[in-house]
């Protein structure tokens, strides 16, 4: 027996290691009712421990390399950026001031919108709390489109939190370690998110294909889907809030597996291949920073002063109204009120005949001198009336009564 193991020890060691790994795999993968193998979204404790160890060993040098690269690239770009930096700084400070005012107004609008939606009973998620993180590593293969960020459980991250950039959605947090987290990108083949086409309002499931392209799968063929249409998150997956940009329709191809269905290939809104900084949505509940709260209070104060000014104006109008003759006289019966008086308040009729009529007198018989009418083509100089803008206009002589009742 001893000679057998000595003679075949290479094969024995190989088989032992293979069997151990197969047994380990069997503990991680379970069969579905459809007979397919599937992996639990949460790793068993022992597997999680291995991932933790691997992350603890690989992450520090990986961060070092990434930090060095950022330092070199950043140093060079900083040197270039120093040109005109003072002017840019001044411009940016002005912009920040303006944006803060706009932000205060927008926050106020958002709060108002929320109140209204609460009244209407909508279950709407809002992004109010995000955490910026630096992406520094990957899963190492296109078979696993994951990447690592430098924020973990110590920063309040939890599994299934959405990860976005300013351009669009990126992925979701999968594994959370102490100081880092693994993010599953939306273009991984095992990823999934509920999306909706902006114009046609067609819903579908977003996933990635082997080449890392985004596609919305299992959509019933529809002639209205055209390239260029925006695709947004639908909000039904309880991970991504509704309305976040996902991408733009690039083309529509038939589903290779199912007749009558199409796959919509998307151009992602976020640059999934070149991610440096991302935002993790840590909370969708309304939560304002002290600065934002201060801006809101300032906005409320401004709003209060505006309303008091409006009240003052209304009070002044009421006082003026008391001094002016009204259309309702409390001392008269209702049928004799001035409001119901249909008689002409200015019974001018025809103007009285002048005692000494001249050319300016309103008379049908008085001929108009030739060459004084408008558009008669006369080149004769006309006297120009110079009336200063602040001068009150002269009272016109009533020629004929214009008010007919």
């Amino acid at each position, binding site marked *: 027996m001893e000679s057998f193991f000595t003679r075949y020890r290479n094969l024995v060691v190989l088989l032992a290691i293979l069997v151990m790994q197969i047994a380990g795999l069997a503990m991680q993968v379970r069969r579905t009712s459809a007979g397919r193998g599937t992996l639990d979204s949460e790793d068993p404790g022992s597997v999680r421990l291995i991932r933790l160890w*691997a992350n603890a060993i690989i992450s520090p040098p990986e961060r070092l390399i990434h930090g060095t690269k950022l330092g070199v690239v950043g140093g060079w770009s900083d040197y270039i950026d120093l040109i005109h930096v003072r002017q840019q700084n001044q411009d940016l400070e002005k912009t920040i001031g303006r944006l803060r005012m706009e932000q205060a107004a927008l926050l106020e609008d958002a709060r108002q919108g929320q109140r209204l939606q609460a009244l209407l009973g909508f279950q709407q998620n809002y992004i109010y709390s995000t955490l910026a993180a630096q992406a520094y590593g990957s899963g190492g293969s296109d078979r696993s489109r994951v990447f690592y960020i430098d924020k973990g459980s110590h920063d309040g991250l939890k599994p299934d939190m959405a990860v976005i950039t300013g351009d669009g959605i990126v992925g979701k947090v999968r594994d959370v370690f102490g100081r880092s987290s693994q993010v599953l990108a939306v273009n991984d083949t095992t990823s999934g998110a509920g999306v909706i086409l902006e114009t046609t309002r067609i819903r579908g499931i977003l996933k990635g294909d*082997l080449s890392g392209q985004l596609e919305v799968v299992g959509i019933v063929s529809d002639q209205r889907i055209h390239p260029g249409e925006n695709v947004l998150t639908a909000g039904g997956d309880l991970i991504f809030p509704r309305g976040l940009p996902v991408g733009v329709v690039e083309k529509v191809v038939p589903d290779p597996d199912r007749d009558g269905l199409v796959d919509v290939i998307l151009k992602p809104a976020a640059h999934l291949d070149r991610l440096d900084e991302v935002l993790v949505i840590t909370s969708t509940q309304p939560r304002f920073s002290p600065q934002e709260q201060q801006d809101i209070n300032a906005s409320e104060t401004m709003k209060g002063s505006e309303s008091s000014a409006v009240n003052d104006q209304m009070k002044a109008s009421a006082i003026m109204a008391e001094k002016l003759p009204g259309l309702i006289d409390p001392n008269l019966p209702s049928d004799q009120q001035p409001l119901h008086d249909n008689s002409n308040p200015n019974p001018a009729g025809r103007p009285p005949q002048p005692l000494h009529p001249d050319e300016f007198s309103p008379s049908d018989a008085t001929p108009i001198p030739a060459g004084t009418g408008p558009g008669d083509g006369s080149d004769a100089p006309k006297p120009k009336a110079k009336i200063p803008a602040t001068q009150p206009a002269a009272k016109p002589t009533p020629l004929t009564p214009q008010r007919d009742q």
Partner: protein
Amino acid sequence: MALLGAEFRRDFEIRRYPVIVYALIPLISLVLQAWLPRVTGPYDWFDLPLVVTVYFALGRRSPIQGTVMGAAMGLFEDALSHRPIGINGIAKTVVGFLAASAGIRLEVDNQAIRLLLNFVLSLLSSAVYLFVTRFLLGMSLEWSWITELLRALGNSAIAVVLFPLLDRLQVKD
């Protein structure tokens, strides 16, 4: 390609390296494998841990060491991904064992043999990965043999450049 008889096998030199090399080179390959795809984007047609596994297995000519090293590298790769831990482990275990077994019989200083071995073992690793995922575990896996072919070519090219550099690290008697 020279297949040699048993009496000549013992004449082959077993390469030895400082202990730090055994620790650092695999670690660097794992770190670079995790970091470089962020630089290369979709063109990540390489598998540095596999190349390093093949190199040490060929040089050490010990199937057990090749097996253990392949298993360790593969398990690390799996642990960094979101897939079950063990798929890459099995693939690279087989590769390490076969590379060491080939190292016993072949003159591995020849660049053409190194290139060919890396190409074949890369494809074998992909095939084992596919077999374990689809048939052993019954999991769905999108697959493109063209990508695997490009990866095998990339590994071969890297091996041609990397192996002579690593040769300089060995301890001379």
